[in-house]
């Protein structure tokens, strides 16, 4: 059931009048502050920023995580706060529209009230309005724009490239873009983006001579102020994604190289220096302590939607760090007041993009309709109906992940299944039809082959330990920014505070302890090896869904956690 805001308010009024007991969580105000999208102009240099839209051209539901554990120095700090902890830290009123945008609390009820989020036609209207108030402002995109939907996959990113140009993106930084292959990326950058979008990445170099592959930065004149935007690609692209897509390029964090470009840009007269980053927020926060001379880091990758800029001190000053969520759900607006060649003040807002509250931009809506037209039949194929709430995001299995691992075990005839801890993938509310499009939201990559391998219990443990360390290593520079690998069939216990190879214990399959020497049949997908063949994951999931027809109650297979009961990065 979906309601307009007016209908919802009428229902609430009737409920209140008839004395129906409503608990505070259910009794959502359903109110949108009048000035929700009004941003008084401030300063003279403004940026708009979005990230990790994952090719979602149309409005979607996207639930923020209820598990986003921080360990070591990240304990209890943004972005490792969820639910009530998050509301408290940012002074957001429970039950408000912001509470719905930024947390998982009462997601389904609130989603029915406030509707879907994002969509490029709605984003376009918002951007046009803000641009009108802030002439000369720049639109920055932290990447993961050309991957995540069926249409992006079938058009080799062309649908998104067209949308970015219409939206007026000025500068972008990359990650998943590279999974289209080095040649396609070069083609887009050199042809499609020529004269419109600057694609910047200071930390992508040739493996042989260390030459820059892309422009490391650009300097733009904003209302008379020279502004440098330095790009930072996802440092672990050839580790987290297949290296064979970019065999001749090397990545890495490269603080020293970044410092060199910051100094170079300042030397050329830049009065404002910002980094457009796909590091992930924890890496951004650490980088801000090490690299000096950066005014703002506009980050993405870890899909953290943080409503305020975080000031980080370093040896020569302060850098503001922002991260702007995912899926087109948010637009960050940063206003800087630059006087006498220095940033003397700032205002930052991370605006949730509620599609029902913003009129669609006609040209963009027409464009989206046009690029989807050849694929509509395939996208709209009805596979099943869900009675439960389906989502992915969180450190461990979400309900949609559970459907995927269940499908892998069933269709491939496996003992257990692994599915990657990607942070993209939209949400479905009970009653929604699971179309092919929604399955592609969760699975659409350029290396989709499913596999069935024999692995020993020891090897299985090594995989869990390895991925666990990518997530829970206390040093952000050793993290890769995904969530824990999703597992089906296998139960285990994990202690995030432990060291690598000591976090995982009590591995159990069908009530029996996993034997380190015994071989098990493990189904999976998204292998980073070259020349892996197998049915694409979306076809495996579609086959399963067509068989079951209705997804009833889904219980995500989550590990038993040790030492986390008080962690503010968790809430039931």
């Amino acid at each position: 059931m979906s309601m307009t805001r007016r209908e919802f308010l009428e229902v609430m009024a009737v409920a209140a009048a008839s004395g129906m007991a409503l608990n505070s969580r259910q009794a959502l105000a359903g109110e949108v502050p009048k000035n929700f999208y009004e941003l008084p102009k401030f300063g003279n240099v403004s940026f708009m920023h979005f990230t990790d839209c994952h090719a979602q051209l149309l409005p979607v539901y996207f639930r923020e995580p209820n598990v986003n554990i921080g360990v070591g120095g990240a304990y209890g700090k943004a972005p490792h706060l969820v639910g009530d902890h998050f509301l408290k830290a940012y002074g957001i009123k429970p039950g408000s529209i912001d509470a719905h945008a930024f947390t998982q609390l009462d997601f389904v009820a609130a989603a029915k009230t406030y509707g879907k989020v994002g969509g490029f036609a709605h984003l376009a209207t918002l951007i046009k309005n803000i641009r009108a108030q802030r002439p000369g402002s720049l639109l920055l995109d932290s990447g993961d724009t050309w991957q995540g939907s069926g249409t992006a996959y079938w058009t080799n990113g062309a649908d998104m490239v067209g949308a970015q140009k219409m939206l007026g993106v000025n500068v972008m930084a990359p990650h998943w873009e590279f999974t289209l292959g080095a040649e396609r990326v070069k083609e887009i950058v050199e042809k499609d983006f020529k004269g419109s979008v600057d694609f910047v990445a200071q930390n992508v170099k040739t493996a042989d001579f260390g030459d820059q592959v892309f422009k490391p930065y650009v300097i733009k004149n904003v209302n008379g102020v020279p502004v440098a935007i330095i790009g930072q690609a996802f440092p672990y692209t050839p580790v987290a994604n297949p290296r064979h897509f970019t065999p001749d390029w090397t990545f890495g964090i490269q603080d020293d190289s970044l410092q060199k470009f910051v100094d170079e840009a300042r030397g050329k007269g830049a009065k404002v220096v910002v980094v457009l980053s796909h590091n992930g927020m924890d890496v951004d926060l650490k980088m801000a302590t090490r690299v000096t001379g950066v005014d703002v880091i506009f980050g993405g990758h870890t899909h953290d939607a943080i409503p305020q800029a975080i000031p980080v001190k370093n040896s020569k000053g302060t850098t503001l760090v922002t991260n702007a969520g995912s899926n087109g759900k948010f637009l960050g607006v940063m206003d800087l007041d630059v006087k006498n060649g220095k940033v003397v003040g700032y205002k930052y807002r991370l605006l949730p993009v509620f599609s029902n509250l913003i009129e669609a931009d006609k040209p963009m809506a027409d464009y989206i309709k046009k690029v989807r037209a050849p694929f509509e039949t395939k996208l709209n194929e009805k596979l099943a109906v869900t009675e439960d709430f389906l989502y992915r995001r969180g450190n461990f299995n979400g309900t949609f992940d559970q459907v995927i691992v269940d499908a892998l075990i069933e269709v491939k005839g496996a003992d257990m299944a692994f599915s990657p801890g990607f942070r993209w993938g939209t949400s479905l509310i009970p009653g929604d039809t699971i179309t092919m499009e929604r399955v592609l939201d969760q699975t659409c990559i350029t290396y989709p082959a499913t596999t069935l391998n024999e692995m020993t219990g020891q090897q299985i443990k090594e995989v869990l330990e390895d991925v666990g360390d990518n997530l829970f290593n206390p040093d952000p520079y050793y993290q890769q920014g995904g969530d824990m690998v999703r597992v089906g069939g296998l139960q285990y216990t994990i202690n995030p505070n432990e060291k690598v190879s000591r976090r995982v214990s009590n591995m159990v399959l069908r009530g029996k302890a996993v034997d380190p020497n015994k071989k098990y049949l493990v189904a999976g997908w998204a292998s980073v090896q070259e020349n892996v063949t197998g049915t694409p994951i979306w076809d495996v999931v579609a086959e399963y869904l067509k068989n079951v027809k209705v997804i009833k109650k889904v219980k995500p297979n989550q590990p038993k956690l040790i030492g986390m009961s008080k962690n503010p990065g968790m809430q039931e």
Partner: protein
Amino acid sequence: MNTKRRTFLKGAGAAGTVAVAVAAGLLKPTEVLAAEWNKAAFDAKGMPDALKVLNATGAADSKDITIKAPDIAENGAVVPVEVTSKIAGTSSIAILVEKNAAPLTANFDLANGADGYVSTRIKMGQTSNVRVVVKAGAKSYTAVKEVKVTIGGCGG
């Protein structure tokens, strides 16, 4: 990117005498390397042995040694490592991978007056500390950096 330079060097490498000699089987790769090949050190199994053979067991930690290597290796088979030693009179720089079966991976002798800088690629089987031993005068100095080798996948 300088494509012309790359093409030229590829051609030059293929025609170069040393490469040709190796390809023809005239020289074993080890013979191409320095004549005074410290076989015992390269064959040493385990860190204590390797340090002993290098005569560097009591090497002092030094902040004048900088190791530039990735935090997470893109490919464990070829991990780029750069070492800079600002220690006066640096005469050799050795690179050891603690968890490799034979830890000593490279040992560079530097002639008098050479900059204390080497750049190479090393092979790593698993996550390990990369230890550098610098010799200057009669003394040994050391520094360490962890490089993670991961199975990959599952990011973002």
